[in-house]
């Protein structure tokens, strides 16, 4: 419990520690599945800039030369076939560059696409419109962990991701940790990622998936091995029994769509809320998971995320506050 509280307090600190561009992949890559690509990307961008500048210079030079010719010789049509040397030299120089880039590309492709032989963490992620369901595979089955919208991983360990979708095509993308991979209904795509250092990494659905594609965010929280083990232990616990008004209203009005293990709430349409209060955000990265954030989400669902599958629950303010309070107790 203490650890989790420490984690919660630590979250904003970790967030603050992130770069100003949390989705950028040309800086701050944090694992073996993303660092080679970062190098490649920076290299290619540099080459691209150089090529554009060289061509720009050539173009300006050519225009200047052409203007000079006009000034000196007037606009008389010029005959002759000279000028082909430009093409020979141009292609002669650019083709080796291109071949080198292609080879570099393949070297990096090989590096990041081949997952390590041993992947200690194995997570099934199912994309829904518009949130993420994570299921950590484990033996025995009772060690499985189900959570949502926040992928918690240990640092320094490669994580296998098995990706699918429950509805339309989505795409799993955490730029600082690894490549994109589509999540397609009826198909399991696998990819992997690894974080070398603890932190919170941003992700986002990268395939257009309808109305709220924009608001399908994701967080990857990388924890040190000890913290990760503590997190695992915590996640395997059921929710504590509660007889509060909030718990009652939750069971009566929310259990059709949400699961809180340890209670009668067993819906699977929305995220598993057994430990919802331990997550950093609500509604797939949209709102901070604070008392105010929870209340706002419950009382203005369709304003905060228009079109979300969660309807505006028809409860009065007191009940909404009670439910928000109950959710806050699910650590």
């Amino acid at each position, binding site marked *: 419990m203490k650890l989790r509280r420490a984690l919660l307090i630590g979250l904003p600190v970790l967030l603050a520690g992130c770069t100003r561009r*949390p*989705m*950028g*992949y040309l800086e701050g890559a944090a694992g073996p599945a993303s660092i080679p*690509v970062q190098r*490649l*990307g920076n290299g*290619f961008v540099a080459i*691209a800039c150089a090529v554009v500048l060289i*061509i*720009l210079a050539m*173009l300006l030079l*050519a*225009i200047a*030369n052409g*203007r000079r*010719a*006009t000034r000196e010789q007037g*606009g008389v*049509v*010029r*005959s*002759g*076939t*000279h000028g082909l040397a*430009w*093409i020979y030299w*141009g*292609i002669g120089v*650019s083709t080796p560059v*291109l071949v080198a*880039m*292609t080879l570099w*590309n*393949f070297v*990096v*492709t090989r590096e990041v696409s081949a997952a390590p032989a041993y992947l200690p963490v194995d997570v099934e992620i199912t994309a829904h419109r518009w949130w993420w369901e994570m299921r950590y595979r484990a033996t025995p089955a009772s060690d499985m962990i189900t959570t949502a919208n926040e992928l918690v991983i240990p640092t320094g360990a490669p994580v296998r991701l098995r*990706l699918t979708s429950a*509805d339309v*095509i989505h795409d799993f993308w955490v*730029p600082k940790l690894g*490549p*994109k*991979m589509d999540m*397609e*209904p*009826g198909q399991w795509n696998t990819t992997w990622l690894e974080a070398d250092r603890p932190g919170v990494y*941003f992700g*986002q659905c*990268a*395939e*257009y*998936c*309808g*109305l709220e*594609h*924009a*608001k399908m965010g994701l967080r990857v929280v990388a924890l040190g091995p000890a913290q990760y083990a503590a997190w695992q232990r915590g996640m395997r616990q059921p929710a504590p029994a509660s007889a509060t008004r909030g718990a009652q209203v939750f069971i009566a009005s929310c259990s059709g769509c949400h699961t809180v293990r340890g209670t009668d709430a067993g819906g699977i349409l929305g995220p598993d809320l057994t430990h919802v209060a331990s997550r950093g955000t609500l509604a797939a990265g949209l709102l901070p998971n604070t008392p105010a954030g929870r209340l706002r989400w419950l009382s203005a669902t369709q304003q905060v995320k*228009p*079109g979300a599958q969660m309807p505006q629950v028809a409860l009065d303010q007191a009940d909404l506050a009670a439910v928000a309070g109950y959710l806050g107790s699910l650590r």
Partner: protein
Amino acid sequence: MATIASDLPRDGVVADRGTLAPASPNPPDLAARLEDIWKETPGVRGWFSTVDHKVIGIRYMITAFVFLLVGGLEALTMRVQLAQPDARVLTPEQYNQLFSMHGVTMIFLYALPMLSGFSNYLWPLLLGSRDMAFPRLNALSYWLFLAAGVFLYISFPLGAAPDGGWFDYVPNAGREYSPGPNIDVYALGLIFLGISTTVGSANFVVTLLRMRAPGLSINRLPIIVWGTLTASVANLFAVPAVSLACLMLWLDRNYGTNFFHVQGGGQPLLWQHLFWMFGHPWVYAIVLPAMGLVSDALPVHCRRPLVGYTPVAMGTVFTMVIGFGVWLHHMFASGIPVLALSFFSAASFIITIPSAIAVFAWIATIHTGRVKFTVPFLYFAGFVLLFVMGGVSGILTASLALDWQLTDTYFVVAHLHYVLLGINVFPVIGAIYHWFPKMTGRMLPERLGRWTFATMFIGFNLAFFPMHWLGLTGMPRRVWTYGAQMGWGTANLIVSIGAFLFALGFVLFLLNLWQGLRRGAIAGPNPWDAPTLEWSMSSPPPLYNYAVIPIVASRHPLWEDRLDEVGDRTTFDRGFLLDNGKETLGVSPLDGEPAVILKMPQDSLLPVSLAIALLVLFCALLVHQALLAGIALLALLVVLVMWFQPHPSPIESERVRMYE
């Protein structure tokens, strides 16, 4: 700007040869006779029944330009929404419909039709012919394009516009996740438009093979002809893929088939394969003719022939051939095995080489030429830079590993706008400045033209260059809004400002067109002193184009004297005189030897009738009105029967009269 402007010729007085008589003779008695033979029905009926390629070409361009403006307005609306984080100007549905319609409009209703317009207008002039091979088919392809455009836009005011993106991936576009008529409009609209494209492409291919002046062998063809030919052949292979995909989608949505339904054993990736098998060749189809426009028009303003005609022409064809083998690079993240993807990645690298040939050819042409700072030149020179930028960013996305980060980010948005705007819109506008005198007989004002170019060029780069940065910092595509914490606000604001500046450029351009039409200087037959055949006649050209079909001897018929080329000279004042009814010359496919005299059809209401019948048919299919669909189908058959009734066949043995 001032220094550049100082050495420019005054408006309308571009070339001293501009006021000379056309090279192609048009003696009054012959002109009167041909005028009489070729004249079309006047009035409203004539407006609907014309089959003149020049009229159709201009209509194509105007309609496509209107769609460009509409698509641009859609884009501006989106840019208002995206100008700041967490904005609420638009709802997500509105945004999704807007970006979908923006894509569909620009790619399907602007980019190719605009080039088809140019090609329609220019081909017979460039080829020394009097019309396209199938004039009525030509009219039909325009009416179908218009009808398909209207069909796609009917849904807009009803709030049922396509909202699945122009790529329309299933299952998001399936009935389950898009239950309204939105996607049916898309699917049927694309099938509809596909008919127009196919018909038009077939016409271009046949026209090239048979409708040329004697002596215009394929090694003398202007590059625009190579470009459009390549694009047309590609379309004939590519369009069926998307038409089939759309038909399957429509059946899935309405009749419970399972082509794409996972539940019924279907495969969503099948859609992506079919779509991109079409989509990627299509990208080249809307780029290669535009490159051809530049390759033909830029040298005029550099006062020399294009450097490397043969490599550029062959590069055009080569690009298209490889272009059919790179579609998987749109699907790098879809879970296809890496080995398979690697081939497509490599092909995507290789495809840059022919484009690089063209770039170096253009730069060499400028470098070794005698540059005149005309407005078309500005657009073409600007285009070369934008082309390189679009191409180089394309190389980045060709990289499999890097594309796993780049794909579906704003980097791709930047890339594709550099490609499609840089390589299509800029050349097209340059080409309008270049060929406007031929089409209207008046010059476009240069001064405003330069301001227009500056506004557009700066606006364009302001709008799209920061998108590279946005993409590299991870902003995903197709998002209706984004959070403030992502740090994308400033760049997006710049983009939006740039977009409006770019739009201002278009306003100036329209103003420019208005000025040109109203009081542009009289152009004369060849204001630019250009070398190709279309400049050998009066501006605008007569109805029948060539009173006497010229006999072509080189690539630059009007520059032959000055280029010191050895060998024959193109003859304008002696050639085939075809005044025995509405007729033109057919030649052998490769060498351009005269083979046959073709009787051309009169103007006809059949094309527009067929288009209306099809429009009704598609509307009926959309709303499931079986009876109405049956009636439309019947009308369709009646029109087709009338269309195929016997008409004068080519005359093999008739004595050919020569004009001496």
